[in-house]
């Protein structure tokens, strides 16, 4: 596995995906759904997540797209917002079980009322975007990328953060690996998070 390209001022992202097989490749819907359900059940069983509130939608007349959109409570204090578009590649060969693949995604981890911790994004429709100190040319927009923020930092670290990106799609973790990364981050920052979010009363008030 190639290391992720590190931009000035940003830390090198630890590799999360160790499986040499391409787990991002197109798959039958039943397989895709089963992988997701199994992973989320494992996270619930391990008490890493407490609430899995991700909704499914199909997009009518959009040429074959499903949407996952919702939020997951991680370690009782953090919220991971999950939005992803799943494209249908082949719906002709098996009834109710098309071949699908994730087309785009955004997974944002935040401490409610304080700020974001990190965000994984697929490429955006822009190479420029807004100027960032850690990526003044906006190169990261063209690639899978990971933003990292300091929720307790000064404005720049808290709101702009730093970004890592990689042209290698395979370098990017699946949702369950990201949730486990969030739990690991929580364990390292538990005392500070508990001080910031004393009550486990997350009912996703920040989204309509």
């Amino acid at each position, binding site marked *: 596995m190639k290391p992720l390209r590190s931009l000035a001022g940003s830390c090198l992202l630890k590799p999360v995906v160790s499986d040499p097989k391409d787990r991002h490749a197109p798959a039958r819907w039943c397989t895709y759904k089963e992988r997701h359900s199994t992973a989320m059940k494992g996270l619930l069983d391990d008490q890493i997540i407490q609430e899995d509130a991700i909704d499914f939608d199909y*997009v009518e*007349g959009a040429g074959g797209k499903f*949407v996952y959109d919702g939020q997951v409570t991680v370690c009782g204090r953090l919220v991971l917002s999950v939005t992803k578009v799943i494209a249908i590649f082949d719906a002709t060969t098996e009834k109710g*079980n098309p071949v699908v693949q994730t087309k785009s995604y955004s997974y944002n981890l935040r401490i409610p009322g304080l700020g974001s911790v990190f965000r994984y*994004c697929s490429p955006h*429709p*822009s190479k420029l975007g807004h100027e960032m100190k850690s990526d003044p040319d906006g190169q990261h927009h063209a690639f899978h990328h990971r933003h990292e923020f300091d929720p307790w930092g000064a404005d720049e670290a808290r709101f702009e953060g730093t970004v890592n990106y990689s042209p290698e799609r395979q370098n990017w973790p699946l949702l369950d690996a990201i949730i486990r990364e969030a739990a690991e981050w929580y364990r390292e920052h538990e005392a500070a998070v508990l001080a910031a979010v004393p009550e486990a009363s997350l009912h996703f008030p920040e989204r309509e």
Partner: protein
Amino acid sequence: MRIQEFDALTADEMQIFVDRSMGKPNGQLGSLQAKLGVLESRYEMSTDTMLSRFRSGQLRETAEIARWLVLAQARGE
């Protein structure tokens, strides 16, 4: 509809979602349009304007803008 509810769906029921999604654009994007509408109302700009401003660097990539970009791609951007 929560993802967990899918375990109860038959292949015939799932095929209905597939057929509707695979159909030609009909201007009825259902709940996706509602989600886009909430964001458009909050930011007081259309999704097209958001995309234009993002591409030109006038709009910073926040968590919510990143979500909006993904939902816009679902619409067909």
